[in-house]
């Protein structure tokens, strides 16, 4: 079984990785933020 080689990542690959993670993280963090707003009354009530 061969081991994966680790060449220096190309700029295009870095851009794809960043865009891909932002694609899923931005809506996810929006959802978490909206949820935290709802949680506040639980501790302030």
């Amino acid at each position, binding site marked *: *079984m*061969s*081991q*994966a*080689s*680790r*060449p220096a*990542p190309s700029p295009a*690959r870095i851009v*794809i*990785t960043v865009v*891909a*993670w932002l*694609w*899923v993280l931005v*809506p*996810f963090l*929006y*959802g*978490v933020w*909206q*949820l*935290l707003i*709802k*949680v*506040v*009354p*639980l*501790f302030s*009530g």
Partner: protein
Amino acid sequence: MPDAGFLDRSRIVAPAHWSRWLVPPAALSIHLAIGQAYAWSVFKDPLSATLLKGSSWAGTLSALPFTLGIVMLGISAAVFGTAVDHRGPRWAMVVATTCFGAGFLISAAGMALGQYWLVVVGYGFVGGIGLGIGYISPVSTLIKWFPDRPGLATGIAIMGFGGGALIASPWSTSLLTTFGGSGAHAQAGGIAKTFLVMGIGYAIFMSLGWLLIRVPADDWAPAGWDPALVREKPLVTSANVSARNAIRTPQFWLLWVVLCFNVTAGIGILERAAPIYQDFFKGDTPAKTLTATAAGFVAILSLANMLGRFIWSTTSDVVGRKNIYRFYLGAGAVLYLVLLFAGNANKAIFLIAAMLILSFYGAGFATVPAYLRDLFGTFEVGAIHGRLLTAWSVAGVLGPIIVDAIADKQKAAGLSGTDLYTLSFRIMIGLLIVGFVCNELIKAVDPKFHEPAGGRAVAKEAA
């Protein structure tokens, strides 16, 4: 629509330099979308106020698309699991995107035409097939990319399913408000536009998944990872078992019971979270404040459910799958005991116990693909996972029946507050203990069920 060649597994074998960290966002783009199912309740009131107005069955009918969707999730995961493993994740993700998006579009047409059955068929049946295929589509691929940390990989993806509702709930509420699909003067056309936008939006969002997904080459392994170390761990096999053989093993059915009862125990609180909180902490609290804090309780349970999927599943890579399920089931039973004895005496203890129970509920889903991989290998782990998800469907019926039916009966008998849940919590403890025992009985799979050497290659060629 891409042609068959584009969808073929051979087209998505990753080149040597491909980063495996591009696979989790591909998986998340699918799971964050289909996790919308858990936010269906947002549509219940608008549907009851429009197409179902005046119906004495409005409550049941408005839940029907969701119920059918979850049933179809279990059925399609079981039926199409083998096809997903053999045809590859891109095919599965395209089918899931098409079905899930089309489900919304058919529902939009149903609302626009005043035909509610189209909403049920569209979202529930067609969309439900998308849910099932989408749910299992990235699992075996992630396990192959992360043989050193399968719990982490599946934890990320399945956390996405829990997180999908967090996005869908505020988004669909906002769309309904914008298009006039909610409130006292809700219009069916407003709900139709909301479904239309969501169908198109999710189809675009999910596209990242099938564009980005890659499978590792057969001889690929993570740098520095030694497969020999895997063989040294107990219960972790380097052999492969087909889906057909897996369901003939006691290990599969023991794990089926473990998953079913772990999920039932979580649903026991999750499904009735707001009423449970109100029954425990009603006291002298004004109704409006109690409603807001109960909504906060529901939200914090969602957070615990989601985080548990990632945190505990990742931990399982270190402590082992059998040990982590000992923890979910054993600690879960103890926490239910704490709820029984502490009651409403201490809110902090109540919150911590409920959050941990929900974190174990989510973690049970997230860790099980890695447990399957340990027991049955990677050959048809997606198909085996699909068959195991029927436990979810059973738990989805069992949990609410236990908690709701018992609470209603206790209320009719004149009981109130924490007394409504004493019996159901005791039943949950019993189920968790049975699950614990089943987990203890899980041993390594008998070699007679293993695929012969080279079986994997033969199966791939045949597909």
